[in-house]
Protein backbone atom coordinates (compact mmCIF):
# COMPACT_ATOMS: atom_id res chain seq x y z
CA UNK A 1 0.00 0.00 0.00
CA UNK A 2 2.74 2.44 0.97
CA UNK A 3 4.81 1.28 -2.00
CA UNK A 4 1.88 1.88 -4.28
CA UNK A 5 1.49 5.35 -2.84
CA UNK A 6 5.15 6.15 -3.29
CA UNK A 7 5.08 4.95 -6.88
CA UNK A 8 1.95 6.77 -7.78
CA UNK A 9 1.75 9.78 -5.52
CA UNK A 10 2.03 12.34 -8.31
CA UNK A 11 -0.70 10.50 -10.20
CA UNK A 12 -3.02 10.74 -7.20
CA UNK A 13 -2.38 14.47 -6.89
CA UNK A 14 -3.00 14.91 -10.61
CA UNK A 15 -6.30 13.07 -10.21
CA UNK A 16 -7.31 15.41 -7.40
CA UNK A 17 -6.50 18.46 -9.54
CA UNK A 18 -8.42 17.05 -12.52
CA UNK A 19 -11.42 16.45 -10.29
CA UNK A 20 -11.23 19.98 -8.84
CA UNK A 21 -11.10 21.48 -12.35
CA UNK A 22 -13.93 19.36 -13.70
CA UNK A 23 -16.10 20.10 -10.65
CA UNK A 24 -15.49 23.84 -11.05
CA UNK A 25 -16.43 23.81 -14.74
CA UNK A 26 -19.65 21.98 -14.02
CA UNK A 27 -20.74 23.44 -10.68
CA UNK A 28 -19.52 27.05 -10.48
CA UNK A 29 -22.11 29.65 -11.39
CA UNK A 30 -19.61 32.40 -12.20
CA UNK A 31 -18.44 32.09 -15.81
CA UNK A 32 -14.96 33.46 -15.06
CA UNK A 33 -14.59 30.82 -12.35
CA UNK A 34 -15.58 28.17 -14.86
CA UNK A 35 -12.77 29.33 -17.12
CA UNK A 36 -10.33 29.24 -14.19
CA UNK A 37 -11.52 25.70 -13.50
CA UNK A 38 -10.88 24.80 -17.12
CA UNK A 39 -7.31 26.11 -16.85
CA UNK A 40 -6.75 24.04 -13.72
CA UNK A 41 -8.11 20.97 -15.51
CA UNK A 42 -5.88 21.33 -18.55
CA UNK A 43 -2.76 22.11 -16.52
CA UNK A 44 -3.36 18.94 -14.53
CA UNK A 45 -3.55 17.03 -17.82
CA UNK A 46 -0.11 18.38 -18.72
CA UNK A 47 1.26 17.25 -15.36
CA UNK A 48 -0.05 13.74 -16.03
CA UNK A 49 1.93 13.51 -19.26
CA UNK A 50 5.15 14.98 -17.92
CA UNK A 51 5.00 12.79 -14.84
CA UNK A 52 4.86 9.78 -17.15
CA UNK A 53 7.90 10.88 -19.13
CA UNK A 54 10.24 10.61 -16.14
CA UNK A 55 12.72 7.75 -16.06
CA UNK A 56 15.04 6.45 -13.35
CA UNK A 57 18.59 7.68 -13.95
CA UNK A 58 17.45 9.71 -16.93
CA UNK A 59 18.38 13.31 -17.55
CA UNK A 60 17.23 16.26 -19.63
CA UNK A 61 16.71 15.15 -23.27
CA UNK A 62 19.49 17.30 -24.71
CA UNK A 63 22.21 15.06 -26.11
CA UNK A 64 25.50 15.86 -24.37
CA UNK A 65 29.00 14.46 -24.34
CA UNK A 66 27.79 11.12 -22.99
CA UNK A 67 26.45 10.19 -26.40
CA UNK A 68 23.15 9.08 -27.87
CA UNK A 69 22.29 6.14 -25.63
CA UNK A 70 18.47 6.33 -25.22
CA UNK A 71 18.57 4.96 -21.68
CA UNK A 72 20.41 8.06 -20.46
CA UNK A 73 17.63 10.52 -21.20
CA UNK A 74 14.00 10.91 -20.23
CA UNK A 75 11.26 10.38 -22.80
CA UNK A 76 11.02 13.49 -25.06
CA UNK A 77 7.76 12.58 -26.79
CA UNK A 78 5.40 13.64 -23.95
CA UNK A 79 7.35 16.88 -23.76
CA UNK A 80 6.51 17.64 -27.37
CA UNK A 81 2.87 16.69 -26.91
CA UNK A 82 2.54 18.96 -23.91
CA UNK A 83 4.31 21.87 -25.59
CA UNK A 84 1.64 21.63 -28.25
CA UNK A 85 -1.16 21.25 -25.71
CA UNK A 86 -0.03 24.28 -23.68
CA UNK A 87 -0.14 26.51 -26.74
CA UNK A 88 -3.54 25.13 -27.71
CA UNK A 89 -4.75 25.77 -24.16
CA UNK A 90 -3.68 29.42 -24.26
CA UNK A 91 -5.44 29.83 -27.62
CA UNK A 92 -8.67 28.46 -26.19
CA UNK A 93 -8.27 30.69 -23.14
CA UNK A 94 -7.88 33.79 -25.34
CA UNK A 95 -11.10 32.97 -27.20
CA UNK A 96 -12.89 32.17 -23.94
CA UNK A 97 -11.89 35.51 -22.41
CA UNK A 98 -12.97 37.38 -25.54
CA UNK A 99 -16.36 35.65 -25.30
CA UNK A 100 -16.61 36.59 -21.60
CA UNK A 101 -15.95 40.26 -22.38
CA UNK A 102 -18.79 40.17 -24.92
CA UNK A 103 -21.10 38.38 -22.48
CA UNK A 104 -20.39 40.94 -19.79
CA UNK A 105 -21.09 43.81 -22.19
CA UNK A 106 -24.47 42.35 -23.00
CA UNK A 107 -25.59 41.25 -19.55
CA UNK A 108 -23.49 43.14 -17.01
CA UNK A 109 -22.81 40.01 -14.98
CA UNK A 110 -20.96 36.72 -15.03
CA UNK A 111 -23.70 34.93 -13.13
CA UNK A 112 -24.91 32.10 -15.31
CA UNK A 113 -28.33 31.92 -13.69
CA UNK A 114 -29.03 35.64 -14.25
CA UNK A 115 -27.82 35.48 -17.87
CA UNK A 116 -30.06 32.50 -18.53
CA UNK A 117 -33.06 34.26 -17.02
CA UNK A 118 -32.28 37.37 -19.15
CA UNK A 119 -32.35 35.24 -22.25
CA UNK A 120 -35.56 33.48 -21.32
CA UNK A 121 -37.21 36.85 -20.61
CA UNK A 122 -36.22 38.15 -24.02
CA UNK A 123 -37.57 35.11 -25.77
CA UNK A 124 -40.67 36.14 -27.71
CA UNK A 125 -42.14 32.64 -27.77
CA UNK A 126 -41.97 32.01 -24.07
CA UNK A 127 -40.26 28.69 -24.67
CA UNK A 128 -37.50 28.35 -22.08
CA UNK A 129 -34.38 27.76 -24.09
CA UNK A 130 -32.23 27.15 -21.07
CA UNK A 131 -34.23 25.07 -18.64
CA UNK A 132 -32.68 25.35 -15.22
CA UNK A 133 -29.54 26.91 -16.57
CA UNK A 134 -27.56 23.76 -16.05
CA UNK A 135 -24.72 23.30 -16.28
Amino acid at each position, binding site marked *: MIDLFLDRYIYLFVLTLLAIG*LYAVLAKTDLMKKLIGLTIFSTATFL*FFIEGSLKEDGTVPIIDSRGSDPTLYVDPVPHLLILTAIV*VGVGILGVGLALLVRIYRAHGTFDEGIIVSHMNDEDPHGVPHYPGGHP
Partner: protein
Amino acid sequence: MNHLAILPLLFLLSGAILAVLAGTLNKNAPQVVAITATASALIASMLGLRTVTQNGPISYELGGWPPPIGIEYTLDTLSAFMLVIVTFIGMLIAIYPARIAFDHVVRRNVPVYPLTLLLLAGLTGVMSSGDLFHLFVFLEIFAIATYGLVALGGDRGVFASFRYLLFGTIGSGLYLLGVGFLYFSTGTLNMADMAQILPEMAGSTTILGALGLITTGLGLKMALFPLHIWLPDAHSFSPPGVAALLAAVQVKAGAYALLRILFDVFGPAYTGSAGLPVAQLLAWFGMAGIVYGSVLATRQSDVKRLLAYSTVAQLGYIGVGIGMGSRLALIGAVLHVLNHALMKSALFLVAGGIIQRTGLKEIARFAGLGKRMVPTMSGFAIAALSMVGIPPLAGFWSKFYLIWAAVDENNWAVALVIVSSSMITLVYFLRMFETIFVRDASEAIVANAKIASPTVIGTVWALCTAIIVVGIANVAIVRNFVGPIADSLIG
Protein backbone atom coordinates in the same frame (compact mmCIF):
# COMPACT_ATOMS: atom_id res chain seq x y z
CA MET B 1 5.10 9.75 -53.22
CA ASN B 2 1.54 10.73 -54.01
CA HIS B 3 0.82 14.25 -52.86
CA LEU B 4 -2.95 13.87 -53.26
CA ALA B 5 -3.23 12.88 -49.60
CA ILE B 6 -2.13 16.30 -48.46
CA LEU B 7 -3.14 18.66 -51.27
CA PRO B 8 -6.69 19.44 -50.03
CA LEU B 9 -5.28 20.38 -46.63
CA LEU B 10 -2.53 22.50 -48.17
CA PHE B 11 -4.98 24.39 -50.38
CA LEU B 12 -7.20 25.20 -47.42
CA LEU B 13 -4.34 26.22 -45.11
CA SER B 14 -2.68 28.45 -47.70
CA GLY B 15 -6.09 29.85 -48.58
CA ALA B 16 -6.63 30.80 -44.93
CA ILE B 17 -3.34 32.71 -44.76
CA LEU B 18 -3.92 34.42 -48.09
CA ALA B 19 -7.41 35.38 -46.98
CA VAL B 20 -5.99 37.02 -43.84
CA LEU B 21 -3.56 39.05 -45.94
CA ALA B 22 -6.16 39.81 -48.64
CA GLY B 23 -8.50 41.05 -45.92
CA THR B 24 -6.10 43.82 -45.03
CA LEU B 25 -6.28 45.09 -48.62
CA ASN B 26 -9.84 44.68 -49.81
CA LYS B 27 -13.04 43.68 -48.07
CA ASN B 28 -14.29 41.38 -50.81
CA ALA B 29 -11.01 39.68 -51.61
CA PRO B 30 -11.20 37.06 -48.80
CA GLN B 31 -14.39 35.58 -50.25
CA VAL B 32 -12.76 35.20 -53.65
CA VAL B 33 -9.76 33.53 -52.02
CA ALA B 34 -12.08 31.24 -50.07
CA ILE B 35 -14.00 30.16 -53.17
CA THR B 36 -10.77 29.46 -55.05
CA ALA B 37 -9.22 27.53 -52.16
CA THR B 38 -12.29 25.37 -51.50
CA ALA B 39 -12.78 24.68 -55.21
CA SER B 40 -9.14 23.59 -55.58
CA ALA B 41 -9.46 21.44 -52.47
CA LEU B 42 -12.67 19.89 -53.88
CA ILE B 43 -10.94 19.01 -57.14
CA ALA B 44 -7.94 17.57 -55.29
CA SER B 45 -10.10 15.43 -53.02
CA MET B 46 -12.18 14.17 -55.95
CA LEU B 47 -8.97 13.15 -57.73
CA GLY B 48 -7.90 11.55 -54.46
CA LEU B 49 -11.14 9.59 -54.22
CA ARG B 50 -10.71 8.32 -57.77
CA THR B 51 -7.09 7.30 -57.19
CA VAL B 52 -7.96 5.57 -53.94
CA THR B 53 -10.82 3.53 -55.34
CA GLN B 54 -8.65 2.43 -58.25
CA ASN B 55 -5.27 1.87 -56.61
CA GLY B 56 -5.99 1.35 -52.92
CA PRO B 57 -5.15 3.55 -49.93
CA ILE B 58 -2.38 6.15 -50.08
CA SER B 59 0.00 6.38 -47.16
CA TYR B 60 1.84 9.69 -47.02
CA GLU B 61 4.90 10.11 -44.83
CA LEU B 62 5.13 13.68 -43.63
CA GLY B 63 8.70 14.90 -43.33
CA GLY B 64 9.91 11.77 -45.06
CA TRP B 65 9.93 9.76 -41.84
CA PRO B 66 8.42 6.28 -42.06
CA PRO B 67 5.21 5.89 -40.01
CA PRO B 68 5.85 4.96 -36.42
CA ILE B 69 8.53 7.68 -36.23
CA GLY B 70 6.97 10.44 -38.25
CA ILE B 71 3.38 11.42 -38.83
CA GLU B 72 1.46 9.47 -41.43
CA TYR B 73 -1.47 10.69 -43.48
CA THR B 74 -3.66 7.90 -44.74
CA LEU B 75 -6.08 8.55 -47.54
CA ASP B 76 -8.37 5.56 -47.89
CA THR B 77 -11.85 5.36 -49.36
CA LEU B 78 -13.52 6.50 -46.14
CA SER B 79 -11.37 9.59 -45.65
CA ALA B 80 -11.41 10.52 -49.34
CA PHE B 81 -15.20 10.17 -49.35
CA MET B 82 -15.49 12.41 -46.28
CA LEU B 83 -13.07 14.94 -47.79
CA VAL B 84 -15.23 15.28 -50.88
CA ILE B 85 -18.27 15.98 -48.68
CA VAL B 86 -16.41 18.53 -46.54
CA THR B 87 -14.90 20.46 -49.41
CA PHE B 88 -18.12 20.42 -51.45
CA ILE B 89 -20.21 21.86 -48.60
CA GLY B 90 -17.38 24.27 -47.79
CA MET B 91 -17.29 25.56 -51.35
CA LEU B 92 -21.04 26.20 -51.34
CA ILE B 93 -20.81 28.11 -48.05
CA ALA B 94 -17.98 30.20 -49.51
CA ILE B 95 -20.15 31.04 -52.52
CA TYR B 96 -23.23 31.82 -50.40
CA PRO B 97 -23.59 35.59 -49.83
CA ALA B 98 -21.59 36.71 -46.80
CA ARG B 99 -24.29 39.03 -45.52
CA ILE B 100 -26.57 36.13 -44.59
CA ALA B 101 -24.08 33.29 -44.30
CA PHE B 102 -22.35 35.08 -41.45
CA ASP B 103 -25.10 37.51 -40.44
CA HIS B 104 -22.51 40.17 -40.82
CA VAL B 105 -21.73 43.18 -42.94
CA VAL B 106 -18.39 42.48 -44.52
CA ARG B 107 -15.66 44.63 -43.07
CA ARG B 108 -12.02 44.58 -43.80
CA ASN B 109 -10.64 43.31 -40.55
CA VAL B 110 -13.29 40.86 -39.43
CA PRO B 111 -11.75 37.59 -40.62
CA VAL B 112 -14.77 35.36 -41.17
CA TYR B 113 -13.48 33.73 -44.35
CA PRO B 114 -10.05 32.84 -42.91
CA LEU B 115 -11.87 31.25 -40.00
CA THR B 116 -14.18 29.31 -42.31
CA LEU B 117 -11.18 28.03 -44.24
CA LEU B 118 -9.43 27.09 -41.01
CA LEU B 119 -12.56 25.25 -39.86
CA LEU B 120 -12.57 23.29 -43.12
CA ALA B 121 -8.81 22.71 -42.87
CA GLY B 122 -9.27 21.36 -39.34
CA LEU B 123 -11.91 18.91 -40.59
CA THR B 124 -9.68 17.91 -43.51
CA GLY B 125 -6.76 17.31 -41.17
CA VAL B 126 -8.87 15.15 -38.85
CA MET B 127 -10.00 13.10 -41.82
CA SER B 128 -6.55 12.53 -43.31
CA SER B 129 -4.51 12.03 -40.15
CA GLY B 130 -3.21 8.57 -39.30
CA ASP B 131 -1.78 9.68 -35.99
CA LEU B 132 -3.71 9.94 -32.73
CA PHE B 133 -2.08 13.11 -31.45
CA HIS B 134 -2.06 14.84 -34.81
CA LEU B 135 -5.80 14.24 -34.88
CA PHE B 136 -6.09 16.09 -31.56
CA VAL B 137 -4.34 19.17 -32.97
CA PHE B 138 -6.78 19.38 -35.86
CA LEU B 139 -9.75 18.70 -33.58
CA GLU B 140 -8.70 21.86 -31.76
CA ILE B 141 -8.25 23.91 -34.93
CA PHE B 142 -11.80 23.32 -36.07
CA ALA B 143 -13.14 23.65 -32.54
CA ILE B 144 -11.55 27.07 -32.00
CA ALA B 145 -12.67 28.27 -35.43
CA THR B 146 -16.18 27.13 -34.51
CA TYR B 147 -16.16 29.09 -31.24
CA GLY B 148 -15.38 32.26 -33.19
CA LEU B 149 -17.96 31.65 -35.92
CA VAL B 150 -20.80 30.70 -33.55
CA ALA B 151 -20.20 33.98 -31.70
CA LEU B 152 -21.25 35.83 -34.87
CA GLY B 153 -24.84 35.03 -33.91
CA GLY B 154 -25.27 38.00 -31.55
CA ASP B 155 -25.46 37.90 -27.76
CA ARG B 156 -27.16 34.51 -27.64
CA GLY B 157 -24.63 33.12 -30.04
CA VAL B 158 -21.83 34.39 -27.80
CA PHE B 159 -23.25 32.63 -24.76
CA ALA B 160 -23.89 29.44 -26.74
CA SER B 161 -20.32 29.63 -28.00
CA PHE B 162 -18.96 29.98 -24.49
CA ARG B 163 -20.85 26.91 -23.31
CA TYR B 164 -19.65 25.02 -26.34
CA LEU B 165 -16.10 26.10 -25.53
CA LEU B 166 -16.39 24.64 -22.03
CA PHE B 167 -17.80 21.32 -23.24
CA GLY B 168 -15.53 21.09 -26.26
CA THR B 169 -12.41 21.71 -24.21
CA ILE B 170 -13.41 19.15 -21.60
CA GLY B 171 -14.06 16.74 -24.49
CA SER B 172 -10.66 17.26 -26.03
CA GLY B 173 -9.07 17.05 -22.56
CA LEU B 174 -10.64 13.61 -22.11
CA TYR B 175 -9.43 12.59 -25.56
CA LEU B 176 -5.91 13.78 -24.71
CA LEU B 177 -5.90 11.80 -21.45
CA GLY B 178 -6.99 8.71 -23.38
CA VAL B 179 -4.19 9.20 -25.89
CA GLY B 180 -1.78 9.58 -22.97
CA PHE B 181 -2.82 6.23 -21.50
CA LEU B 182 -2.42 4.62 -24.92
CA TYR B 183 1.03 6.11 -25.43
CA PHE B 184 2.27 5.04 -22.02
CA SER B 185 1.01 1.50 -22.63
CA THR B 186 2.21 1.03 -26.19
CA GLY B 187 4.98 3.54 -26.86
CA THR B 188 3.53 4.69 -30.15
CA LEU B 189 1.06 7.25 -31.49
CA ASN B 190 0.56 5.92 -35.00
CA MET B 191 -2.87 4.39 -35.51
CA ALA B 192 -1.81 1.47 -37.70
CA ASP B 193 1.12 0.68 -35.43
CA MET B 194 -1.09 0.82 -32.37
CA ALA B 195 -3.71 -1.38 -33.98
CA GLN B 196 -1.07 -4.13 -34.19
CA ILE B 197 0.03 -3.81 -30.58
CA LEU B 198 -3.37 -3.43 -28.92
CA PRO B 199 -4.88 -6.91 -29.55
CA GLU B 200 -2.01 -8.50 -27.59
CA MET B 201 -2.95 -6.41 -24.58
CA ALA B 202 -6.65 -7.29 -24.54
CA GLY B 203 -8.08 -7.05 -21.05
CA SER B 204 -5.73 -4.33 -19.85
CA THR B 205 -7.73 -1.91 -17.73
CA THR B 206 -5.60 0.99 -18.96
CA ILE B 207 -6.59 0.41 -22.57
CA LEU B 208 -10.23 -0.02 -21.58
CA GLY B 209 -10.09 3.21 -19.60
CA ALA B 210 -8.50 4.96 -22.57
CA LEU B 211 -11.27 3.61 -24.80
CA GLY B 212 -13.87 5.01 -22.42
CA LEU B 213 -12.19 8.43 -22.25
CA ILE B 214 -11.69 8.70 -26.01
CA THR B 215 -15.25 7.62 -26.77
CA THR B 216 -16.65 10.15 -24.30
CA GLY B 217 -14.41 12.91 -25.60
CA LEU B 218 -15.31 12.31 -29.23
CA GLY B 219 -18.95 11.78 -28.25
CA LEU B 220 -18.89 15.32 -26.86
CA LYS B 221 -17.45 16.62 -30.14
CA MET B 222 -20.02 14.68 -32.14
CA ALA B 223 -22.89 15.60 -29.79
CA LEU B 224 -24.13 12.06 -29.40
CA PHE B 225 -27.32 12.00 -27.36
CA PRO B 226 -26.51 12.45 -23.68
CA LEU B 227 -23.59 14.69 -24.60
CA HIS B 228 -25.52 16.84 -27.07
CA ILE B 229 -26.38 19.62 -24.57
CA TRP B 230 -24.32 22.26 -26.33
CA LEU B 231 -25.62 21.53 -29.83
CA PRO B 232 -29.13 23.05 -30.02
CA ASP B 233 -27.96 26.49 -28.85
CA ALA B 234 -24.76 26.54 -30.88
CA HIS B 235 -26.55 25.51 -34.07
CA SER B 236 -29.69 27.60 -33.76
CA PHE B 237 -28.12 30.88 -32.65
CA SER B 238 -25.25 30.88 -35.12
CA PRO B 239 -25.79 32.53 -38.53
CA PRO B 240 -27.30 30.32 -41.29
CA GLY B 241 -24.10 29.66 -43.22
CA VAL B 242 -22.23 28.72 -40.06
CA ALA B 243 -25.12 26.53 -38.89
CA ALA B 244 -25.11 24.74 -42.25
CA LEU B 245 -21.38 24.13 -41.96
CA LEU B 246 -21.64 22.90 -38.38
CA ALA B 247 -24.58 20.57 -38.91
CA ALA B 248 -23.43 19.27 -42.27
CA VAL B 249 -19.76 18.59 -41.70
CA GLN B 250 -18.42 19.77 -38.36
CA VAL B 251 -20.21 17.27 -36.12
CA LYS B 252 -19.39 14.57 -38.67
CA ALA B 253 -15.69 14.97 -37.92
CA GLY B 254 -16.38 13.61 -34.43
CA ALA B 255 -18.35 10.76 -35.97
CA TYR B 256 -15.54 10.05 -38.42
CA ALA B 257 -12.89 10.02 -35.69
CA LEU B 258 -15.03 7.72 -33.56
CA LEU B 259 -15.57 5.34 -36.48
CA ARG B 260 -11.88 5.35 -37.33
CA ILE B 261 -10.64 4.83 -33.79
CA LEU B 262 -13.23 2.25 -32.72
CA PHE B 263 -12.84 0.10 -35.82
CA ASP B 264 -9.31 0.70 -37.06
CA VAL B 265 -7.40 1.22 -33.80
CA PHE B 266 -9.21 -0.73 -31.10
CA GLY B 267 -10.96 -3.30 -33.22
CA PRO B 268 -13.20 -6.15 -32.10
CA ALA B 269 -10.89 -7.22 -29.26
CA TYR B 270 -12.06 -4.20 -27.28
CA THR B 271 -15.36 -3.08 -28.74
CA GLY B 272 -16.73 -6.61 -29.16
CA SER B 273 -18.50 -8.71 -26.59
CA ALA B 274 -15.30 -9.46 -24.66
CA GLY B 275 -14.35 -5.86 -24.06
CA LEU B 276 -16.22 -2.73 -23.10
CA PRO B 277 -19.77 -2.75 -24.48
CA VAL B 278 -19.09 0.53 -26.27
CA ALA B 279 -20.93 -0.61 -29.38
CA GLN B 280 -24.11 -1.56 -27.56
CA LEU B 281 -24.00 1.67 -25.57
CA LEU B 282 -23.60 3.69 -28.78
CA ALA B 283 -26.59 1.95 -30.33
CA TRP B 284 -28.77 2.53 -27.27
CA PHE B 285 -27.72 6.17 -26.89
CA GLY B 286 -28.23 6.65 -30.61
CA MET B 287 -31.79 5.33 -30.33
CA ALA B 288 -32.48 7.55 -27.34
CA GLY B 289 -31.09 10.49 -29.33
CA ILE B 290 -33.34 9.72 -32.30
CA VAL B 291 -36.44 9.71 -30.11
CA TYR B 292 -35.39 12.77 -28.08
CA GLY B 293 -34.39 14.87 -31.08
CA SER B 294 -37.46 14.01 -33.13
CA VAL B 295 -39.89 14.71 -30.30
CA LEU B 296 -38.27 18.00 -29.32
CA ALA B 297 -38.09 19.10 -32.95
CA THR B 298 -41.88 18.95 -33.19
CA ARG B 299 -42.17 21.40 -30.31
CA GLN B 300 -40.00 24.15 -31.81
CA SER B 301 -41.43 27.28 -33.35
CA ASP B 302 -38.12 28.65 -34.66
CA VAL B 303 -37.03 27.06 -37.92
CA LYS B 304 -33.31 26.96 -37.09
CA ARG B 305 -34.00 25.48 -33.67
CA LEU B 306 -36.18 22.80 -35.27
CA LEU B 307 -33.35 21.95 -37.62
CA ALA B 308 -30.88 21.84 -34.71
CA TYR B 309 -32.96 19.31 -32.76
CA SER B 310 -33.42 17.33 -35.94
CA THR B 311 -29.61 17.20 -36.16
CA VAL B 312 -29.52 15.56 -32.72
CA ALA B 313 -31.87 12.90 -34.06
CA GLN B 314 -29.92 12.42 -37.30
CA LEU B 315 -26.66 12.01 -35.37
CA GLY B 316 -28.47 9.29 -33.47
CA TYR B 317 -28.92 7.39 -36.76
CA ILE B 318 -25.17 7.53 -37.31
CA GLY B 319 -24.55 6.40 -33.73
CA VAL B 320 -26.95 3.48 -34.19
CA GLY B 321 -25.18 2.49 -37.40
CA ILE B 322 -21.74 2.58 -35.79
CA GLY B 323 -23.08 0.74 -32.75
CA MET B 324 -24.62 -2.16 -34.67
CA GLY B 325 -21.36 -2.47 -36.55
CA SER B 326 -22.47 -4.93 -39.22
CA ARG B 327 -21.65 -4.34 -42.88
CA LEU B 328 -25.16 -3.14 -43.72
CA ALA B 329 -25.32 -0.91 -40.65
CA LEU B 330 -22.00 0.71 -41.50
CA ILE B 331 -23.16 1.31 -45.08
CA GLY B 332 -26.24 2.98 -43.60
CA ALA B 333 -24.18 5.10 -41.21
CA VAL B 334 -21.66 6.30 -43.82
CA LEU B 335 -24.42 6.94 -46.34
CA HIS B 336 -26.28 8.91 -43.70
CA VAL B 337 -23.23 11.10 -43.11
CA LEU B 338 -23.38 12.05 -46.80
CA ASN B 339 -27.15 12.42 -46.96
CA HIS B 340 -27.48 14.42 -43.78
CA ALA B 341 -24.69 16.75 -44.91
CA LEU B 342 -26.56 17.50 -48.14
CA MET B 343 -30.07 17.74 -46.66
CA LYS B 344 -29.31 19.71 -43.53
CA SER B 345 -27.08 22.25 -45.25
CA ALA B 346 -29.76 22.72 -47.93
CA LEU B 347 -32.37 23.36 -45.22
CA PHE B 348 -30.17 25.82 -43.34
CA LEU B 349 -29.33 27.66 -46.55
CA VAL B 350 -33.05 27.89 -47.35
CA ALA B 351 -33.60 29.32 -43.87
CA GLY B 352 -30.89 31.84 -44.69
CA GLY B 353 -32.65 32.72 -47.93
CA ILE B 354 -35.90 33.33 -46.03
CA ILE B 355 -34.06 35.52 -43.52
CA GLN B 356 -32.44 37.42 -46.41
CA ARG B 357 -35.78 38.47 -47.88
CA THR B 358 -38.11 38.61 -44.89
CA GLY B 359 -36.04 38.44 -41.70
CA LEU B 360 -38.47 35.84 -40.36
CA LYS B 361 -37.47 32.81 -38.27
CA GLU B 362 -40.76 31.63 -36.74
CA ILE B 363 -42.40 28.94 -38.81
CA ALA B 364 -45.90 30.20 -38.04
CA ARG B 365 -45.19 33.42 -39.93
CA PHE B 366 -43.94 31.68 -43.07
CA ALA B 367 -47.52 31.43 -44.39
CA GLY B 368 -47.60 32.02 -48.12
CA LEU B 369 -43.86 31.98 -48.70
CA GLY B 370 -44.21 29.03 -51.06
CA LYS B 371 -45.93 31.24 -53.59
CA ARG B 372 -43.51 34.16 -53.26
CA MET B 373 -40.10 32.50 -53.17
CA VAL B 374 -40.74 29.60 -55.54
CA PRO B 375 -37.16 28.47 -56.37
CA THR B 376 -35.98 28.53 -52.76
CA MET B 377 -39.04 26.89 -51.31
CA SER B 378 -39.14 24.11 -53.91
CA GLY B 379 -35.57 23.36 -52.88
CA PHE B 380 -36.82 23.28 -49.31
CA ALA B 381 -39.51 20.79 -50.30
CA ILE B 382 -37.00 18.42 -51.89
CA ALA B 383 -34.61 18.54 -48.93
CA ALA B 384 -37.47 18.08 -46.45
CA LEU B 385 -38.95 15.14 -48.33
CA SER B 386 -35.50 13.58 -48.38
CA MET B 387 -35.24 14.08 -44.61
CA VAL B 388 -38.50 12.19 -44.18
CA GLY B 389 -37.19 9.42 -46.41
CA ILE B 390 -39.39 9.51 -49.49
CA PRO B 391 -38.05 6.81 -51.87
CA PRO B 392 -36.19 8.16 -54.85
CA LEU B 393 -34.42 10.80 -52.76
CA ALA B 394 -31.11 10.32 -50.96
CA GLY B 395 -32.48 10.28 -47.42
CA PHE B 396 -34.48 7.14 -48.09
CA TRP B 397 -31.46 4.94 -48.73
CA SER B 398 -29.58 5.41 -45.48
CA LYS B 399 -32.71 4.66 -43.47
CA PHE B 400 -33.34 1.70 -45.76
CA TYR B 401 -29.92 0.21 -45.07
CA LEU B 402 -30.18 0.86 -41.33
CA ILE B 403 -33.59 -0.84 -41.15
CA TRP B 404 -32.32 -3.71 -43.31
CA ALA B 405 -29.37 -4.13 -40.95
CA ALA B 406 -31.68 -4.07 -37.93
CA VAL B 407 -34.04 -6.65 -39.41
CA ASP B 408 -31.05 -8.75 -40.40
CA GLU B 409 -29.95 -8.89 -36.79
CA ASN B 410 -33.50 -9.29 -35.46
CA ASN B 411 -32.99 -5.98 -33.70
CA TRP B 412 -36.60 -4.88 -33.95
CA ALA B 413 -36.24 -2.03 -31.48
CA VAL B 414 -33.93 -0.17 -33.87
CA ALA B 415 -36.24 -0.71 -36.83
CA LEU B 416 -39.21 0.49 -34.81
CA VAL B 417 -37.39 3.61 -33.61
CA ILE B 418 -36.26 4.54 -37.11
CA VAL B 419 -39.69 4.06 -38.64
CA SER B 420 -41.48 5.98 -35.90
CA SER B 421 -38.92 8.79 -36.02
CA SER B 422 -39.51 9.08 -39.76
CA MET B 423 -43.23 9.36 -39.04
CA ILE B 424 -42.59 12.19 -36.57
CA THR B 425 -40.36 13.92 -39.12
CA LEU B 426 -43.11 13.58 -41.68
CA VAL B 427 -45.57 15.18 -39.26
CA TYR B 428 -43.51 18.26 -38.58
CA PHE B 429 -42.51 18.81 -42.16
CA LEU B 430 -46.12 18.33 -43.33
CA ARG B 431 -47.15 21.01 -40.88
CA MET B 432 -44.52 23.29 -42.35
CA PHE B 433 -45.60 22.45 -45.91
CA GLU B 434 -49.16 23.34 -45.01
CA THR B 435 -48.06 26.72 -43.63
CA ILE B 436 -45.69 27.52 -46.45
CA PHE B 437 -47.42 26.24 -49.55
CA VAL B 438 -51.14 26.06 -48.80
CA ARG B 439 -51.92 29.12 -46.71
CA ASP B 440 -52.01 32.58 -48.19
CA ALA B 441 -49.62 35.29 -47.18
CA SER B 442 -50.92 37.02 -44.09
CA GLU B 443 -48.09 39.47 -43.56
CA ALA B 444 -47.02 42.32 -45.78
CA ILE B 445 -43.38 41.35 -45.52
CA VAL B 446 -44.16 37.92 -46.97
CA ALA B 447 -46.52 39.24 -49.61
CA ASN B 448 -43.83 41.59 -50.85
CA ALA B 449 -40.93 39.14 -50.62
CA LYS B 450 -38.80 38.92 -53.73
CA ILE B 451 -37.20 35.67 -54.81
CA ALA B 452 -33.86 35.07 -53.15
CA SER B 453 -30.62 36.24 -54.70
CA PRO B 454 -29.05 34.06 -57.45
CA THR B 455 -26.22 32.72 -55.28
CA VAL B 456 -28.71 31.55 -52.65
CA ILE B 457 -30.85 29.78 -55.23
CA GLY B 458 -27.77 28.40 -56.94
CA THR B 459 -26.29 26.87 -53.81
CA VAL B 460 -29.63 25.49 -52.60
CA TRP B 461 -30.28 23.90 -55.97
CA ALA B 462 -26.77 22.52 -56.21
CA LEU B 463 -27.49 20.67 -52.99
CA CYS B 464 -30.95 19.55 -54.15
CA THR B 465 -29.49 18.24 -57.41
CA ALA B 466 -26.95 16.34 -55.34
CA ILE B 467 -29.76 14.91 -53.18
CA ILE B 468 -31.63 13.72 -56.27
CA VAL B 469 -28.53 12.36 -57.98
CA VAL B 470 -27.31 10.54 -54.86
CA GLY B 471 -30.79 9.08 -54.49
CA ILE B 472 -31.06 7.84 -58.06
CA ALA B 473 -27.45 6.71 -58.42
CA ASN B 474 -27.46 5.14 -55.00
CA VAL B 475 -26.68 1.60 -56.12
CA ALA B 476 -23.58 2.80 -57.94
CA ILE B 477 -22.42 4.87 -54.95
CA VAL B 478 -22.84 1.96 -52.57
CA ARG B 479 -21.10 -0.45 -54.92
CA ASN B 480 -18.15 1.81 -55.70
CA PHE B 481 -17.56 3.79 -52.52
CA VAL B 482 -19.66 3.01 -49.47
CA GLY B 483 -19.56 -0.78 -49.77
CA PRO B 484 -15.74 -0.91 -49.89
CA ILE B 485 -15.62 1.51 -46.95
CA ALA B 486 -17.77 -0.81 -44.84
CA ASP B 487 -15.71 -3.82 -45.93
CA SER B 488 -12.44 -2.16 -44.98
CA LEU B 489 -13.83 -1.04 -41.60
CA ILE B 490 -14.95 -4.54 -40.73
CA GLY B 491 -11.52 -5.70 -41.83
